[in-house]
């Protein structure tokens, strides 16, 4: 294996792009009903995720970026089949994966595994590493006997750089540091030999000096095992570091997406621009003029149209009326914003005036 940079990998992955996606989300939507304040009133609904579509490819990562409450974890949980989507479809290798038998769900989960944010609560503290890693091996019949199981556990521990592996196999979670725990959690996800890893903020609970180590381990896995990654993060810089493609979510809506470098160097949507101007950047010459107002809205009564409009410095009347269609900028970069016109979607022609108000459209 060569010591290749993420940039080189992008081009390698682009060659693989011709391949079919492993996992596809098509128009995913999730509403949660919550208890209302009125006894006989209608049950209020949290509009957590609206109409989200993307595809995951082998050896590539898609970063889902957004603040807390943007719906990114809900998306991952739908993909892990922990939540049933309210609408939309999941396609695994082109075939719909929806409510089916237990055995079909087990087979799905063999291929799609999740890494959680907090390794302090995602590992059962009553069991040692041997049990934690042995269980998926047994459940998915990857180990023939106890000796086989032990060998596989040792291999897994070596894969995640917990060495000497023999020393870790009998340890309990409380005897491990945060970074070691997260490595065990990664090993557990790898035990079923999955094709897709859903990593929900996999390093944000770890110490700074360990984060990069764990990120690099995941990058190695992406390259070597050709895993497809959904990488959830609030840190736009690590999205750029880890993922070829980035999708920005705001209050349950996907607002912008495309190649990570495009999205982060040339952000189109005002929210993406806000997010980037807020990120710490030691190389920033002077404090950027930073404009933000208001907070993330309630998702029980979300703002109409584009949910960012109450905070958007460029908001127009039309933004309140409906969600903008998708405008493409070439190279796979797109955004949902009326600043760039009506987008490619079929929309009524009444709002042509807004196009005139918008800045010159690029490309």
């Amino acid at each position, binding site marked *: 294996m060569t*010591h290749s*940079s993420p940039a080189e990998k992008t081009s390698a992955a682009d060659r693989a792009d011709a391949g079919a996606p492993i996992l596809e989300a098509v128009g995913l939507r999730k509403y949660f009903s919550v208890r209302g304040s009125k006894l006989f009133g209608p049950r209020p609904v949290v509009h957590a995720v609206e109409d989200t579509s993307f595809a995951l490819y082998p050896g590539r990562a898609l970063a889902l970026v957004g*603040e*807390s409450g943007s719906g990114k974890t809900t998306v991952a949980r739908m993909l892990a089949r922990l939540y049933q989507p309210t609408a939309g479809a999941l396609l695994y290798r082109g075939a719909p994966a929806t409510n089916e038998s237990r055995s079909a769900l087990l087979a799905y989960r063999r291929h799609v595994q999740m890494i959680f944010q907090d390794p302090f609560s995602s590992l059962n503290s009553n069991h040692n590493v041997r049990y934690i890693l042995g269980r998926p091996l047994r459940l998915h019949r990857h180990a023939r006997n106890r000796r086989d199981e032990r060998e596989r556990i040792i291999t897994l521990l070596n894969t995640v750089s917990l060495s000497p592996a023999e020393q870790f196999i009998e340890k309990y979670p409380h005897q491990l540091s945060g970074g070691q725990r997260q490595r065990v959690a990664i090993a557990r996800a790898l035990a079923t030999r999955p094709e897709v890893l859903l990593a929900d903020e996999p390093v944000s609970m770890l110490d700074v000096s360990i*984060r990069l*180590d764990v990120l690099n381990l995941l990058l190695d896995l992406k390259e070597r095992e050709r895993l497809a990654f959904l990488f959830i993060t609030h840190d736009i810089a690590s999205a750029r570091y880890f993922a070829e493609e980035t999708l920005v979510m705001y209050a349950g809506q996907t607002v912008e997406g495309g190649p990570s470098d495009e999205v982060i160097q040339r952000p189109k949507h005002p929210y993406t621009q806000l997010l980037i101007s807020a990120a710490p950047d*030691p190389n*920033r010459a002077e404090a950027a003029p930073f404009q933000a107002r208001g907070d993330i809205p309630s998702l029980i009564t979300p703002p109409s149209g584009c949910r960012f409009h109450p905070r958007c410095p460029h908001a127009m009347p039309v933004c309140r009326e409906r969600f903008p269609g998708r405008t493409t900028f070439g190279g796979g970069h797109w955004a949902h914003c009326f600043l760039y016109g009506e987008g490619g979607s079929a929309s009524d022609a009444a709002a042509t005036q807004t196009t005139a108000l918008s800045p010159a459209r690029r490309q």
Partner: protein
Amino acid sequence: MSNGVFTAGARPLLEIKRVSVDYRAESGTVHALTDVSLTLERGQILGLAGESGSGKSTLGYAITRLLKPPAEITGGEALYYPRTSRQGMGTRNGAAPAPAAVDVLKLTPGQLRGLRWKELAIVFQSAMNALNPVIDIAAQITDVLRTHQPGLSGRQQRARAIELLRLVGIAPDRLHSFPHELSGGMRQRAIIAIALALGPELIIMDEPTTALDVVVQREILMQLIGLRNDLGFSVIFITHDLSLLLELADKIAIMYAGRVVELATRDELKRLPRHPYSYGMLNSFPTIHGERRRMVGIPGAPPDLRSVPSGCSFHPRCPLAFAPCDRVVPALRQAAAERSDPAVACHRYDPALSSAPPPTNDEFAARYAAAYQAAREGRRA
């Protein structure tokens, strides 16, 4: 962002001298803080950066005397230099003979009460836990005023509360909100408002924005810098996020396993970190701009404070470690003859121990890359 509100040559605000803190545990004594010395100038923002267990919060709590057993301050002093005339916030031009310094670590509880809030306030990480959930914001602000300024009338207290909320960007109509009615960012603002209530000279902030989203974090930091420029207080800002300090702090102390390993101005640290750990930390953050390349980070993990490595506690992770590092504890000293140079605790800067020239950014990069490569190959073998 920094520009000197403080004047050179003036008395410092706080001088921390060789402070040590131990935690007495059944399994033995943990040295959470060893011989830490720092100086805070007036109006300065001093950043304390380190990972968990580095002692950064312990230091903050030690100088505010908030440590409780089993923690114990085993030595050192924290000299606080009070201002001569206090005419309230905004007007600061004391010229009369300065009162003597007080050692915060030796104050009686009664004397401490006089110091707290009026001179020195603290902002904690968790805004939800720091506010009382069953009392509205107004009452929590006026509570401070009632206790420390009993002369104020109810009307004056209320006026002051509104003024404070306005300072931190909360509309006065939120005065009677309860903590659960405020967003995370607003709660943290309310806490900053309470900290400002008596116009303190020094505010210690322990990870004040860590639990917040980036956009809110940036808003609050901008506000903090603005308030510092207007009111002239000093800040000790404790965080694990070095990239934040590089934008915010005037001076940065890097802590590792209970010691300060480097003390430098923000610009100097950015230009040329002196300690190998500082270099590793600075290069552990992916960046938004610039070339996309594989970064290497620091090998290994921070030590368990119950069994800190001998000599320089960073030596097992250090790609530049050489003979004396596992035997002799390096002292914090000037990296070079210049007085303005950063202080660093590393044997590579000691001519008596190292004949090699002080490391450069290129040497750091090469050594870290080699260590990373070796670890990768070891993994595969």
